[in-house]
């Protein structure tokens, strides 16, 4: 160690920071002056910073004067700076690095025009520095990697020749729900199947019928009875809703004012499936005070008929329906089915003589002999299967007959509507199991709700449905790819179209997002408790898939490897048959290498691979195999795998490489390569416009995803699930978790697109949300699953990345939150001031969810002990401020516990999980910042943080710098970072400006 420094430390620091005491875990006496070791350098830098901040030495322990402090700091800083600068000059800031797993995968996807190729999981996990797999020192190579590269490249290349010689023509196929085995019963026991599905037109409310007839597609469907409930009718007058008597249709019936004035009218309109004779039935409860002369009017094919009905009679069919006559609707002999057949029934209360009840009307088709047409074939078009649950393994209902024949673009259409299913109650005596539902379980009241599968009506609201493609029968996170979303409307079904890219063998999977996904060990009846008014579902009529729409043939992936070489079929794939193998091998290879190597290909390097190909051909290998082997070799070669460069100014090719791996996670595209060729990339305007172009490309989304996954650790979002006793409302709520991630990505992408200030990382008055997330955040009035920008109310604690649900979830486990975990995360990720790890002798805090003590009380020790306090005075404030949010990031006033509390809460959770928990202690989210400013809650805390925007801007700049340059930000880089900040100040540290200034800075343009 240099003499001057040694003296300084000896005088002012060693007393506490020596071998014996090592105060705060720091032993300066034995600390090497070894700036080659990054870890040791970090310690020296920390020492420097604490002395600069006058945190050390502590005032009461030493008499360090200002001048002496200044001299020492300059000396220390100067030495570290000069050492690093010398290193940079010799080696560059960034050591050469290989591509990481995701970059490798993206490169192959781009190269082979194969957007759904998956090879990353075949490669071992990458090492990370500061959470980013972009720094060379952590990206090691072992035989494991090399072997994996060979296997991955080969499998990716072979995909490119897996197609028939003849271009497949697009076809359109419709798959009717009525004919889908998977839409009858699914897997699992029939109790669950009966809960999950209802098949239109079948009276299958009992086990036997469901099992036997439900499985039998040949079973003829009961003719479609059209029912129109009062909820779909047109009214005049202030009808009263009633549920006093139970023999009504739907959720309620209507009653007038018993004045017979004629001011109350109701009109039911229906669209009948085809012309013919129907029996009209009406429901009206019945009873002694009802209207004796209720005037009905029927409009039919032959005109109008008026009828006066005595509503004191109890309806004759099942106490529910009263037939009032048979009428013809639609013109007979019409032939074509295209004209809709409209029927209308109306009722008024004029001179009715008693209470007029209006409920529902029904049209029952009759066959030619005038008999109720029990056996009429319901058209496949009209029949549907309704699904009453969200998707969750193993209960995926869907159209399994479709499997994509070949990889490519398709159009997907679905016809669907939302419905509501009635629940009924079943009671029984004694221990014997109920006759119709033996699979279900008794509850304490001995009455339990059960689905009534032939009482299905129009839904009350539209239901969002998310459509996925999946290559696995039992899909998981890895295999599902969202295709689109739509909202199935109530009343009449609609057809929704979306575009999809399918892998070969892909299937369509449906998720009725809002509906609960009952999870074992929940029983069907517990789910019914959730929706006492009726159970929402989505009825699917059919799935239609048209395609494949193949833009070019042979496909682009083949052309990328074999250009225009003609093909011949060989089993399930093609082979390339060139006329001049050697010559064409050379041409193809040259194009390939130029594309994947990021610099001009040296002759020697071209020869190396060309001679290999030649050797293979001479040994008798086929052209296709020889090329695949040669390409595999190129893709495993160090010139492909590594970013290299000489220390100093980067040349155009290296800049293009760095830029495309920063903002596109892949090799430069054609446009960028051309600019590099032309030597234009050292021009600041060109750089600026390229950055803009890359950010706006669809591949720019990769940057947002990978950067956030690493920076905010969002790739860990599914590591824990919320505890089902404490947080029953979140069980099986994948919609919420997916929406959280989507919000973070959209928000961050918008920060860049709109050049928004860095302070929006901490707080903002807007965010991006869909219905589910808005509900989570307590923002009313957001309907539907599409994401949109929303304003946040003034007193909302949300807004800003700091309080996004995704961040709050990854910093908690499923049971408890931890102020220390959250506090450290905020300091590390958002403020750029990572705290030192805890001293090894300190035992970890043991969380106690039995209710008596809060985590805050358990952490008191840290604030009382001086050596703990030095770090905890910084860690605790953000940690405490964020205690206002639960494990899923929702605002809470109280903790929840399993042991004791002020109130006992029990019920049924989102997945039918019965739970008991207690309202625990009130949350105390107050604290004091290290500067001494107190705050009551996170809103006040955010305001305090925002007093120093530069800290926030500096942190995000440094995070982006590590990501972009593949090197940690060193002590010697600080001046440059400050320069970047200065240039961004005018835009209030705009995020796009920061990115631009990073790309323009020497930190980026030098190795």
């Amino acid at each position: 160690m240099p003499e001057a420094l040694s003296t300084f430390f000896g005088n002012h620091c060693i007393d506490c920071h020596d071998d014996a005491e090592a105060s705060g875990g720091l032993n300066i006496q034995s600390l090497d002056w070894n700036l080659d070791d990054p870890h040791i350098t970090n310690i020296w830098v920390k020492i420097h910073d604490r002395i600069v901040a006058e945190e050390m030495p502590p005032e009461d322990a030493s008499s360090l004067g200002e001048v002496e402090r200044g001299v020492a700091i300059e000396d220390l800083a100067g030495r570290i700076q000069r050492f690093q600068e010398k290193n940079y000059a010799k080696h560059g800031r960034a050591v050469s690095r290989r591509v990481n797993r995701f970059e490798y995968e993206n490169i192959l996807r781009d190269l082979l025009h194969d957007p759904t190729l998956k090879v990353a999981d075949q490669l071992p996990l990458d090492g990370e520095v500061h959470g980013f797999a972009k720094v060379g020192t952590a990206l090691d190579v072992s035989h494991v990697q090399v072997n994996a590269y060979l296997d991955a490249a080969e499998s990716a290349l072979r995909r490119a020749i897996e197609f028939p010689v003849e271009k497949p023509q697009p076809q359109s196929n419709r798959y009717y729900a009525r004919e889908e085995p998977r839409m009858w019963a699914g897997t699992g026991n029939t109790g669950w199947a009966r809960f999950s599905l209802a098949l239109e037109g079948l009276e299958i409310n009992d086990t036997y019928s469901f099992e036997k007839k439900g499985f039998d597609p040949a079973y003829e469907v009961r003719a479609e009875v059209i029912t129109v409930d009062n909820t779909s009718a047109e009214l005049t007058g202030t009808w009263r809703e009633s549920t006093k008597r139970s023999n009504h249709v739907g959720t309620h019936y209507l009653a007038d004012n018993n004045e017979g004035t004629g001011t109350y009218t109701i009109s039911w309109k229906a669209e009948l499936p085809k012309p013919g004779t129907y029996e009209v039935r009406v429901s009206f409860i019945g009873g002694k005070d009802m209207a004796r002369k209720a005037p009905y009017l029927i409009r039919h094919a032959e005109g109008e008929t008026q009828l006066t009905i005595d509503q004191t009679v109890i309806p004759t069919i099942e106490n529910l329906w009263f037939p009032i006559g048979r009428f013809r609707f639609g013109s007979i002999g019409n032939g074509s089915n295209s004209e809709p057949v409209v029927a209308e029934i109306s009722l008024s209360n004029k001179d009715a003589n008693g209470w007029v009840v209006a409920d529902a009307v029904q049209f029952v088709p009759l066959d030619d002999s005038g008999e109720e047409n029990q056996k009429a074939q319901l058209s496949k078009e009209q029949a549907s299967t309704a699904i009453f649950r969200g998707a969750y393994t193993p209960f995926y209902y869907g159209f399994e007959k479709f499997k994509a024949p070949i990889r490519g673009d398709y159009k997907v259409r679905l016809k669907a509507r939302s419905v509501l299913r009635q629940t009924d109650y079943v009671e029984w005596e004694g221990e014997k199991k109920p006759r119709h539902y033996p699979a279900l379980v008794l509850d304490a009241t001995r009455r339990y709700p059960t689905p009534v599968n032939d009482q299905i009506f129009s839904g009350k609201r539209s239901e969002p449905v998310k459509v996925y493609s999946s290559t696995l029968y039992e899909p998981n996170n890895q295999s599902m790819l969202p295709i689109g979303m739509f909202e199935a409307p109530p009343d009449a079904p609609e057809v929704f179209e979306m575009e999809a890219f399918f892998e070969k063998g892909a299937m369509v999977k449906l998720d009725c997002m809002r509906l609960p996904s009952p999870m074992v060990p929940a029983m069907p009846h517990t789910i019914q408790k959730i929706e006492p008014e009726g159970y929402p579902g989505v009825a699917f009529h059919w799935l239609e898939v048209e395609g494949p729409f193949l833009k070019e043939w042979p496909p682009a992936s083949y052309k990328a490897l074999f250009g225009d070489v003609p093909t011949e079929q060989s089993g399930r794939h093609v082979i390339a048959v060139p006329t001049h193998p050697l010559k064409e091998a050379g041409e193809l290879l040259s194009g390939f290498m130029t594309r994947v190597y990021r610099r001009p290909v040296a002759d020697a390097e071209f020869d190396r691979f060309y001679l290999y190909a030649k050797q293979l051909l001479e040994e008798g290998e086929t052209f296709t195999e020889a090329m695949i082997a040669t390409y595999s070799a190129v893709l495993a070669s160090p010139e492909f795998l590594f970013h290299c460069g000489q220390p100093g100014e980067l040349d155009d090719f290296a800049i293009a490489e760095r830029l495309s791996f920063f903002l596109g996670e892949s090799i430069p595209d054609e446009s960028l390569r051309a600019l590099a060729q032309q030597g234009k990339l050292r021009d600041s305007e060109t750089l600026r416009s390229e950055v803009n172009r890359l950010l706006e490309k669809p591949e720019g989304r990769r940057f947002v995803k990978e950067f956030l996954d690493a920076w905010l650790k969002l790739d860990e979002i599914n590591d824990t699930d919320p505890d089902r006793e404490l947080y029953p409302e979140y069980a099986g709520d994948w919609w919420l978790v997916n929406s959280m991630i989507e919000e973070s990505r959209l928000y961050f992408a918008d920060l860049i697109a709109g050049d928004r200030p860095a302070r929006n990382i901490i707080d903002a008055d807007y965010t991006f949300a869909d219905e589910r997330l808005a509900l989570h955040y307590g923002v009313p009035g957001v309907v539907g699953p599409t994401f949109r920008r929303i304003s946040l109310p003034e007193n909302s604690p949300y807004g800003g990345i700091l309080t996004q649900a995704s961040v709050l979830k990854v910093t908690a486990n499923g049971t408890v939150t931890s102020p220390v975990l959250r506090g450290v995360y905020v300091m590390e990720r958002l403020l750029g001031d990572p705290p030192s790890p805890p001293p090894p002798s300190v035992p970890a805090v043991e969380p106690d969810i039995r209710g008596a003590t809060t985590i805050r009380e358990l952490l008191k020790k840290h604030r009382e002990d001086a050596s703990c306090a030095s770090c905890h005075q910084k860690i605790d404030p953000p940690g405490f401020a964020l205690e206002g949010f639960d494990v899923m990031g929702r605002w809470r006033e109280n903790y929840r516990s399993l042991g004791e509390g002020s109130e006992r809460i029990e019920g049924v959770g989102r997945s039918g999980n019965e739970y008991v928990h207690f309202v625990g202690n009130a949350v105390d989210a107050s604290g004091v910042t290290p500067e001494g400013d107190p705050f009551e809650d996170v809103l006040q805390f955010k305001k305090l943080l925002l007093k120093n925007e530069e800290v926030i801007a500096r942190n995000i700049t440094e995070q982006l710098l590590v990501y972009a340059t593949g090197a940690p930000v060193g002590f010697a880089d600080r001046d440059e970072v400050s320069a970047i900040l200065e240039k961004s100040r005018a835009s209030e540290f705009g995020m796009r400006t920061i990115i631009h200034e990073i790309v323009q800075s020497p930190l980026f343009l030098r190795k």
Partner: protein
Amino acid sequence: MKTNRRTFLQTAGVSVSLPLLESFGASSVEAAPKRMIAINQDLGFIPKRFFPKTAGRDYAMSPYLEKITEHREQFTVFSGLSHPGVDGGHRADKTFLTAAPHPGRASFRNSISLDQVIANEVGNKTRFRSLSLGINDVRSLSYTQAGVEIPTIKSAADLYKKMFLQGDRDAMEAQLDRLRRKGSILDVVLGQSSHLSKRVSDSDRQRIDQYQTAVRSLEQRLTDAEAWEARPKPTVDEALPEYPEDKKEFFAMVRMMNDMCRLALQTDSTRVITLFLGSVRTPGVTFDDGRTLGGYHNLSHHGKDEVKLSRLEEIENAQMELFGEFLRDLKSVNEVDGNLLDNTIVLYGCHMGDANIHNNSNLPIILAGGGFQHGQHLAFNSQNNTPLCNVFVSMLQNMGVETDRFASSTGSLTGLV
């Protein structure tokens, strides 16, 4: 948990045929080889139910150890062990067998794992230098010299196929062709890397050199694999297991993997195995009677709640029972001298002492078999732990590796003979 053995396993009627080991000059009188298997039970055990209260030969069994009491004389239980400098809670799973410090730090580099040191010594004697296995998790216990993770085989069915399914002559030719093809590709890229190495700056050269080492190492392995490809694989009575897809069938998966490990050792397909029983990513655990408890990770954060604790205990009891079954299976295989357990060092433990608080000290560790003198509780200082690597040194020496250090060891383990 009652034992519900799947019918594919017939311990009684196992007949295993091994290829003649002519080229290695082994005679039938030669002693059985030494093997090693290291198992990490991801979420560990509730400390006060695992650790015995007394130490030495006459220690009283703890509630969990009761489950394997029939094997008392064949295992040693330790307390007061850990890896110095290893912290980071869950992050320490990747340093369980490497002891590289501070796995949670931003600049962490891992180092070679115990099993790879052993594999470097004995690996070339078997078809597979070593096997890295994992359940329900992508992470591995095995790391190369360069600190790169060796990916695990995640399905007992896949492992079975690798070990025992023999293709026909054509398939074998095809596989040999593949291996040779890979070898020829490596020659090409090796040439380029030598060339590149001269062009780059000093610090970059290290990276390129590491790549070169990797390529050469792979070349050697491919050559070995070619030699093995020509030899017939062992045949076994057991059928291909139906490995569950549902992550909650955790216990079934553990059983199947344990069985595959036994078969692998028994057929001398390998002498070095690591097995990671990943429970952090196991959503829930299904018992034989159909009940599912879970999520497992959630329960490990019991927060002292009685209900959670009792559920966690049920799961952990089951884990111990499965371990006991495994030891029993190893014992039931007779070898020339003793049984398979006598000739296999079994390390079983966790990188966390108490998952509820995520600490990495006072780790639960059991060592079984391998010919050590067992039947004790070796208790070390709970405030000032002894390095776990000392046990590793003892294991290495037992395997015939001439060394007296490994990572953070201070010697071999006192009291372990």
